[in-house]
């Protein structure tokens, strides 16, 4: 069930650092933005009200800052099979331009580092990754960084 040993996982991770995984694509729909905004209970009308949004700086509906976490491309080319529990240690988003309904976003993700640790509850692996999000016109819309904890 746990797959690789900690040492094997560390070695495997080291080999996968910088290897871009297969792309994942999301066609952004206004309904998905609305569902996301409602789920996070963000009341900003620019996410849901086209009439209101038209008169803002944005000129139309945009997505909330963390919306692109809906798009999760595979990290690297092979699954890092360690542990049975995954926890999220942290996230960072850099947004370059807003995401809008009608955008087609393509994302790639890769490992940036893997660190084996002895935790209070036993072996754990800290997995750092990055994701790059590009729109249909080739513009970088955002980059994401994530810290995952596996044990």
């Amino acid at each position: 069930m746990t797959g690789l040993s900690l040492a094997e996982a560390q070695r495997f991770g080291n080999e996968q650092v910088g290897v871009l995984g297969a792309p994942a694509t999301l066609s952004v729909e206004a309904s998905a933005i609305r569902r996301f905004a409602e789920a996070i209970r963000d009341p900003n009308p620019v996410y849901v009200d086209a009439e209101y949004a038209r008169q803002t700086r944005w000129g139309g509906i945009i997505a909330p800052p963390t919306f692109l976490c809906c798009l999760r491309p595979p990290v690297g080319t092979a699954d890092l099979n360690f542990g049975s529990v995954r926890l999220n240690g942290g996230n960072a988003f850099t947004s370059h331009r807003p995401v809008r309904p009608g955008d087609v976003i393509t994302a790639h993700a890769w490992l940036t580092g893997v660190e084996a640790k002895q935790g209070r509850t036993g072996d754990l692996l800290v997995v750092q990754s990055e994701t790059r999000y590009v729109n249909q016109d080739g513009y970088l819309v955002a980059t994401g960084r994530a810290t995952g904890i596996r044990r």
Partner: protein
Amino acid sequence: MNRSSDEGHSPGRFSVGDRLPAVVRTPTTRDLVKYAAASGDLYEIHYDDRSAREAGLPGVIVHGLLKAAWLADLVGSWAGPDAFVRELETSYRGIDQPGHPYAMGGIVRGLSGDQHAPCVMVELWGESARGQRTTTGSAVVELTASPLPPEH
């Protein structure tokens, strides 16, 4: 940088040390299910109690990214409708569970950018009911109403 201008969305209306209005949210398991569906993160530890306990947790826990979204809302609501969250960083140092209040706050730590793209740097946090800072983070928010880069 020295600027006293208060017009438009210059950081003149903000000062280092300003506190963001505190917000408390008490999520329900239903909120977590809604977020799971909306985000596509269907990991069971966020809505199935048995899976969460098998994973060594005391029960289902709030998604880290949901807490990040709440903090982005906190800073966005404060900065105003023309603000753009350029950077949002969150670190999850403890778990939070449905039925328990999660108290968020923030403080202005710096001002940067120029008159075309004035930015505020904000420290953010979220605390559990026991006062543990379970989330620490920061954001860089661009305040300007200057034109966006061309789309085409």
